[in-house]
């Protein structure tokens, strides 16, 4: 799943940075502190952009390369913020065999950014998710929490149109 470098400008505040640095200072000497630090950073900023990973690298002394390796290894970390409109397409087994891959591709083509990333204006983000427990409706897409079931690629533009206004 591509988790590409974000195109959205970083809008972190000094308060967020201070909070992160305080947390790092408290925990950095403990063994295995990297994961909790990354989780805390994501909690504070909502995602882990390069600027935030550089702060973590500088404060902990762990090379940025290692931080980035961990952030891209685990699905729980995001390199992109969520858009004003969050689109998720389920790629769980049931949805996938019913053709959700094509639905996702249609979403990507319609919105113009890759799964796991965000449009440069910050309006839309696309995620490919694991099973969301609505297999009876497969394939499933959600937009801002609203569930759309029995999707076909043809339905995608119609649904997304209402979020584009």
């Amino acid at each position: 799943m591509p988790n590409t470098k974000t195109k959205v400008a970083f809008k972190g505040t000094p308060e967020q940075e201070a909070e992160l640095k305080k947390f790092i200072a408290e925990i950095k000497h403990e063994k295995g502190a990297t994961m909790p630090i990354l989780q805390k950073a994501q909690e504070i900023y909502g995602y882990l952009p390069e600027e935030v990973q550089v702060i973590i690298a500088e404060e902990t002394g762990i090379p940025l390369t290692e931080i980035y390796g961990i952030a891209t290894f685990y699905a729980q970390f995001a390199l992109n913020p969520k858009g004003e409109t969050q689109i998720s397409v389920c790629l769980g087994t049931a949805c996938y065999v019913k053709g959700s891959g094509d639905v996702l591709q249609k979403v990507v083509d319609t919105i113009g950014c890759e799964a796991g990333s965000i449009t440069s204006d910050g309006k839309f983000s696309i995620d490919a998710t694991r099973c969301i427990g609505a297999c009876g409706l497969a394939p499933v897409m959600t937009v801002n929490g609203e569930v759309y079931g029995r999707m076909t690629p043809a339905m995608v533009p119609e649904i997304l149109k209402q979020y584009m206004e």
Partner: protein
Amino acid sequence: MDMVNVKVNGIPVSVPAGSTVLEAANAAGVDIPTLCYMKEINAIGACRMCVTEVTGARGLVAACVYPVAEGMEINTNSKKAYDARKRTLELILSNHRMECTTCARSHNCELQKLANEYGVKEVRFGDPGSLQPQIECSTAHLIRDNSKCVLCRRCMAVCNHLQSVAVIGASERGFATHIGSPFDRGLGEVGCISCGQCIAVCPTGALTEVDDTDKVWAALADPTKHVVVGTAPAVRAALGEEFGEKIGTNVEGKMVAALRRLGFDGVFDVNAGADLTIMEEANELVERVKNGGVLPMITSCSPGWVRFCEQYFPEFIPNLSTCKSPQQMFGAMMKSYYAKQAGIDPKDIFVVTAMPCTAKKYEIRRPDEASVDGLWDIDATITTRELAKMIRKAGIKFERLPDEKFDPAFGDFTGAGVIFGATGGVMEAALRTAVETLTGEELKKLDFTEVRGVAGIKEASYEVAGMTVKVAVASGMANAKELLERVKRGEATYHFIEIMGCPGGCVNGGGQPIQPGNVRNFVDLRAERAKALYAQDAAMPIRKSHESPLMKKVYAEYLGKPGSHLAHELLHTSYAKRSRYPGLEAEKA
């Protein structure tokens, strides 16, 4: 030491307890194939090429990490192991872009060699023919093509553990796993120091140096250019390996003959540039000691180290000697002193150097390295490997070459210049001159053996003219980092520190001939190649830079005295703090 008795393919051997199956096999004279294993820094059992049958284990074990036990019988050559290794090779090759005929590592590729040895005729999996190049070429020295990467992680290991630069890592997971830099930035955007150690350990053609031989061929073919070449001390200690000589053979004479046959108009030695560096650097040290200048003074010959300092330890920039590296001094002298002597317009002189180093490709275009009429001091630099390639292309039968001597105009050098290629060599060369300058007396013993050898950090102190001179030597950036942090914490004080970018110094530079893992893991390249230089030094009639007839002539006729105005113009440079995250900084600006 506790010893353990095992049998390897029926051969009894006794090895220290805690040894691995791979080490036991080596002791028995048996080679087990490896792709990922690097002694001490990359024992990760990842590539599965070394799988071997041993008694007491249920399945095959990874020989590089599996410890031996008393009475163990190891069978490296069972059908089961052969089949597993061949299947592994097929799987690796299923995702490897095979362009062996045009690959820079053809005939010197560990993967190609193993595929041949194991008789891999076809790859049943995937569609390797459809793979496209994935090129990263944002630096002056390196090209990465991930379509040839086997994910062995040797490059990561050297970058992280030996160099502590850690700009190469693995990102993402599963089939998407790939080697790269944070946020998939180019190496030029992340604080790489261009040392090239990653290239030297890559088992395939995924990492290669930028090939600059075409620039040299073009200059040689241009009748308006006067093309001169200079060779670094360490090149002669390793070039022979490219032509089947034993590791540690000094091939200086043949190298000179080959360069002459390639058509260079002047065949000179950067050893003379090294002597010049000592004249200036020893003078700078004496001045700093006498006049309360910034101490410890730290050497500046290694462009990888200089860049490391600028990026990671900018607080030590005032400590860096302002002397240019021997290569840059050589270039500046070619375009000034030599141009004048030979009566050639400096802009018609094309200066080439052959270096054990990839960072030199970066250094030649640093600001402040163009001292004559804004002309670059050096026009092109090639590695030892590229020089070997040129010699082969020219059809020169290296082993049949006679031993020849450098051209006298800038080819006369001392033993001090020779040892510049090994860790501790610059220190020793500088001490030979500085001590005599401070005491005004002739040294009784020229060998400063305390600073020799491959240890990562070496310290010594000498009683000179009523004062205790404390020195330290480090090679490899992880060792340099440790030493500098000690100095920062105030745990150690020195007058003079020598730092070389690559572990063991230039003899083990990133541009030296590539030795495969099964040689590197069991032969100390640093020590073997350094021996060639120390032996040459010991046999030289003149072993102190300040006694070199060429140096005496150059200063008398041209430069005046060390540290003179002209010397400063030509032979000294400047440094600046640089970002560790240049890519991100550039985007912000």
